[in-house]
């Protein structure tokens, strides 16, 4: 009887450890209810197409630093940022920097006209039905996510940035 009793004790304590550990663990690592990403979080995955119909996933760029920028033609600070991102992209491209600019679910013609106007070399992806935007918990535009090469968020910047702001963060992102 003594042996089976010890077994029951160990089984119960292990069960408590697993269930309790899971319950407490999820509270510790849970994202906020309002869906805002925090530094160190793993940003939600997405699979989005560019204007030519090529599909890109965030996981395609694993091991590389990525800037994910949400923009719309209706948002003036976003529009002002685009040429800055273009220059920054050209500057850091060789070091492996990827820029993914996700349009905020506008229609094809609008995005096409916009890209034609600015001559952008980095990936312009198109969100559909505000799905990706929602999964990233976006509240205002532009919002830019700087993702480290380990796939974790370094910083989320809400609002327009000067070129210097972007440059400083890219340097940190590339760990220079």
């Amino acid at each position: 009887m003594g042996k089976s009793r010890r077994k029951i004790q160990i089984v119960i304590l292990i069960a408590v450890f697993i269930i309790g550990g899971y319950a407490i663990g999820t509270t510790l690592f849970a994202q906020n209810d309002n869906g805002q990403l925090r530094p160190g979080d793993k940003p939600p995955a997405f699979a989005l197409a560019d204007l030519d119909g090529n599909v890109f996933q965030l996981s395609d760029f694993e091991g590389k630093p990525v800037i994910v920028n949400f923009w719309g033609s209706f948002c003036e600070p976003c529009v002002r940022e685009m040429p800055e991102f273009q220059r920054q992209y050209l500057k850091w491209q060789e070091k492996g920097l990827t820029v993914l600019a996700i349009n905020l679910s506008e229609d094809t013609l609008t995005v096409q006209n916009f890209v034609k106007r600015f001559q952008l070399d980095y990936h312009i992806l198109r969100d559909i039905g505000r799905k990706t935007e929602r999964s990233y918990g976006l509240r205002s535009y532009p919002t830019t996510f700087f993702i480290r090469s380990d796939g974790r968020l370094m910083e989320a910047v809400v609002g327009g940035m000067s070129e210097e702001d972007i440059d400083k963060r890219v340097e940190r992102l590339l760990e220079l």
Partner: protein
Amino acid sequence: MLVPENTKCECGHQNAVGTVLCESCGKPLLEELQKADTPLEMRYDGVARRSQKTNPSIIDRVWNFFSSVKIAIYLIIITFLTAMLGTIYPQENSFINNSEPWLYYEQTHGLPGKIYYALGLSRTYESWWFIGLLVMIGTSLVICSLDRVLPLYRALSKQQIRKHHQFLHRQKTVYRGEVEGNAGEWVDQFAAQLKRKGYTIHTDESGAAMLAEKNRFSRWGPYINHIGLILFLLAILARSIPGWQMDTYVTVPDGDTVEIQGTNYYVKSEKFTVDFYNDEELPDSLKGKPRPKNFETKAVLYQCVQDCSDPLKSPQLEEVTRHDIGVNSPLQYKGLKLFQFDFNLTPRLNAVHPVLVDKTTGDVYGPFDLPMKDSALVHKLGPFTLELYANYMEFALDSEGKPTTLSREPNAPAFVFTVKGPGLKPEGEPYMYFPMQKDKVRFSQDSINRALADRIEIRVDGMENVDFSEATTFLNVRMDKALSFLWVGGIISMIGLVMGTYWQHRRIWLRIDEGKLSLGAHSNKNFFGLRAEIAAALKKTGIEVEPKRLDNGGNNA
């Protein structure tokens, strides 16, 4: 307090460490208890708790910690007190659209609010320490119950009939007297009386000792109650499993199909309607104010069956159910519930079906379909071709004077076409078209289009050629898979509670030695009823005794 010494009783029974009353004859084992003459503590029938051991290891120590009822009570008190803290200010998860809760607490409640937020009390019930307390209570429930129910079960299923005199005389209900004649016959007579009251009778081979017992099942009540509580707690903890609990909101304009985030479902609102009370129906104080009488969303729920996350294809949907959602009448499907939450009566323009008029000939071409979003890029209308060059959802001029859009909602839509046709330049001429009359005037469409405005006109004939959403409905999406488990746990817990509350486990032991009757009885509550039952049975056998004379003191309500 654990006494490792002799646990062998004089009756020859070997008891486990920590036993208070011999498991067999019931004689008190502890010396100081033997000397006293106060009524015995009958809790768990005096058997040892399972975990009581002489040489506790680390596992035993953890086990003993959770096995203590004292600890369990402390845990429950701490949980209650901390749960109260969570009710001081609103919890963060009760806000629907607040991305900056820290500002809310500071601005609404001042410094205390700031401290409240900083301490993490704005998320009390999701905090690691609160969940930790629940886990500890759960552990304590399991271990406390297990440690007591198994020894108790064993003790009650192999009860010795002939008990030690000390055991009998130190019960809280006792009778001592003389019995004339044959002891066995008297016992049979007394047993027959108790049988009529629902007791089960056990006599030993001599016939001069007896145990009468009833409602033993009520002893399992607390443990059944605990099983229910454990299930309840597990169900609460299970809510953190992804997909078990959801509480979100969707915005659905009339005619649109919107994805319910985090699920495979899409919801379409075919039409939202709201009725208002008219003034005759309202009291004077409310006259002239819009008071909704009834609102309803004709909703259709779809499930995505293919191409659900392919960005190049649109998802293939299959209707699963439809329902007219009203107040207190949600759409329900497999645990998913859609409640009417709010509405907005601002119309939204979806598409127009305009015609092209050749002003020189008076010919009318069309109508053609012009949705506000993702319109076809080329429209052929008789001899004319309209090539869509640009479109704007909310037309405006930016700080540099260039055309731009202020939002992605069709609040002031504008289209720029390159028109080709008879009498026009071969490379085409630009024509700007504002579907809404107010914008035509505001941005003076005719002067923008200059000469072309005299050649052609794009216009909409009648409201039947305008497609718009009259209203937008807001639905609350809820899912709680834990709810049914909460119910089951609650019901089991209630069954246990009733079992333990409305019945009492009553036992009467007696032995007759040379004409001397020793009777002791025990109940876990309602000793008054027990004494009355014994006195009535004794009376039938010729022994007149006042029920309250059976009271042997002790705390016996």
